[in-house]
């Protein structure tokens, strides 16, 4: 009995499918393999990227990344930009718009840190000067590589390198501190140890940080971060914060506020520079991402307070490594099409 029902069901399905196919064939008078999707009110045509994307998808992406960044206290640019690659936004637009999104997410952070007086303005200024120089260099390299057709690979390689490095360091750090917490009695790292950094010339006093060091290391750190902001569309906090703590020996209480200040101004400059040189900033895309991001960040910050630090940091490290792996695989796997076409502009 059951068998017969199954057979009849199978035939009925077959007939139905045939019928549907015929209807579909008749309905498909259009010329193209993908039939027109039914009008979707949430579909958004992005003016600069020139692609049509679901607004909810973008809002959700911004929200999830914002949630993570609020929870972990990171900028989130390093997640937004690769995610934009994955949904088909041209890399140049993804990078420039990513920088714009970082501006928004750092503004509220900077205001909060200013209220707490946790910003070293002099250090921020030195980092910023380096950052602007790095950003200018980055924009130039970006434009040159775009023209030569190597920008996608360069951006992807940068992501693999930095995400892999930072993910591995973070994982190592949080695993060992987890072990330390279990085993206790580990040597406490001191912030104020004298290293080669303290032997360099051009020393200035950074009162808020209680430091008297050369301006060269902060300038270089700032420049590296500015370069990465222009190339990768990230804030660069994941590089700057460890560098400020371990290389410059800054006290942790001013590190976050000072790095955010630098990030806000450098990404602001980068956004304008990309808009002027490459015309790749998509305001509509940025706006939707920011909307989702800000709401997600607020929720994430609330959740983050209640969770334990080390496990969270391991999770973030794994997430960073996962994104790194995905980007790396795209470079390593043999593509199905060896050729790509880019439309140029009329002379």
């Amino acid at each position, binding site marked *: 009995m059951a068998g017969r029902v199954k057979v009849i069901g199978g035939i009925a399905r077959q007939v139905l499918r045939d019928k549907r196919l015929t209807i579909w064939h008749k309905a498909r008078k*259009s010329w193209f393999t993908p039939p027109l999707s039914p009008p979707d009110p949430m579909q958004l045509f992005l*003016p600069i990227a020139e692609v049509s994307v679901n607004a909810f998808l973008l809002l959700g992406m911004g929200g999830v990344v914002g949630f993570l960044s609020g929870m972990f206290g990171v900028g989130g640019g390093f997640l937004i930009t690769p995610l934009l690659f994955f949904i088909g936004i041209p890399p140049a637009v993804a990078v420039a718009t990513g920088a714009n999104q970082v501006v*928004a997410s750092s503004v509220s952070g900077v205001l909060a840190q200013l209220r707490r007086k946790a910003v070293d303005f002099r250090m921020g200024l030195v980092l910023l000067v380096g950052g602007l120089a790095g950003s200018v260099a980055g924009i130039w390299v970006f434009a040159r590589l775009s023209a030569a*057709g190597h920008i996608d690979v360069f951006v992807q390689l940068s992501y693999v390198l930095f995400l892999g490095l930072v993910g591995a360091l973070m994982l190592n750090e949080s695993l060992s501190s987890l072990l330390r917490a279990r085993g206790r009695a580990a040597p406490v790292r001191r912030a104020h140890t004298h290293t080669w950094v303290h032997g360099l010339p051009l020393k200035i006093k950074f009162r808020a940080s209680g430091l008297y060091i050369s301006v060269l290391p902060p300038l270089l750190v700032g420049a590296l971060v500015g370069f990465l902001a222009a190339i990768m569309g990230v804030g660069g906090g994941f590089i700057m914060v460890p560098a400020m703590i371990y290389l410059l020996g800054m006290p942790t209480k001013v590190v976050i506020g000072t790095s955010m200040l630098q990030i806000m101004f450098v990404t602001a400059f980068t956004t*304008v520079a990309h808009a002027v040189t490459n015309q790749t900033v998509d305001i509509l895309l940025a706006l939707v991402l920011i909307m989702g991001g800000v709401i997600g960040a607020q929720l994430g910050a609330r959740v983050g307070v209640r969770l334990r630090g080390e496990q969270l940091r391991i999770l973030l490290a794994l997430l960073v490594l996962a994104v790194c792996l995905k980007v790396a695989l795209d*470079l390593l796997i043999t593509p199905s099409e060896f050729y*790509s*076409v880019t439309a140029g502009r009329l002379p």
Partner: protein
Amino acid sequence: MIRLVILWLLLASPAAARYDTTGGEREQIVAGLSQNAVSITASYVGSEILIYGAVKRESPAPLGAPLEVIITVEGPALPQIVRRKDRRFGIWINTAEVTIDRAPSFYAVASTGPLEQILSDTEDLRHKITIPRAIRAVGISAEAEGAPAFVEALLRVQTAAGRYGWAERVVALTEDTLFRADVALPANLIEGDYRVRIFLTRGGVVVDALERRIAVRKEGLERFFTRMAFEQPLAYGFLALIVAVVAGWGAAAAFRLIRP
């Protein structure tokens, strides 16, 4: 006098006989488009355009080869850079590129039957109807001419992306007189004038041809942002910043109000 007549015939005949290969039984296209302008707005997801028309004739339709209709839609031409990836140091990177001076950003052909049966090679060469011919017609640089693999790749990639396409038997022809076809324009359109050509063929020979244009323009917010981004990039960059600052700060402030 006779010489004059012969001269007049010689001069006039190419123009007169261009599509009139059947002598006195001239068949002409009368056609229209459901819309001759497409606006790309924020909610644009592609559009469908109906191309319809009729065949006008003074005398009864000639016997013999059946009447066929071919319709092409061509987007504005742009320089196209075709790049080839190779494995270097274990990763896939672009190693070679060829610039094709101008190729249509969009090209589609629809017909009442298989093109190889309803269109002769010489007619295709003259009117540049099939995709490879139409692409080459627009302008292939000497560099690209020496690299046929790149031109083939352009066709392949653009076809896979839905920018080039053809479909046979999608133009409906009723009683050898009325015809209609629906054209689906994709969501990722480039602004410009799209050229619609309609050809009437008999036995592989083009009997009449007609051209129409569809103006594709960005409208509203899309138009505002695109124009500003390219015409006043500095102002646009600052606008992007203002939007980011207001949205970032405003949303945080709003959250503080909701939950102090």
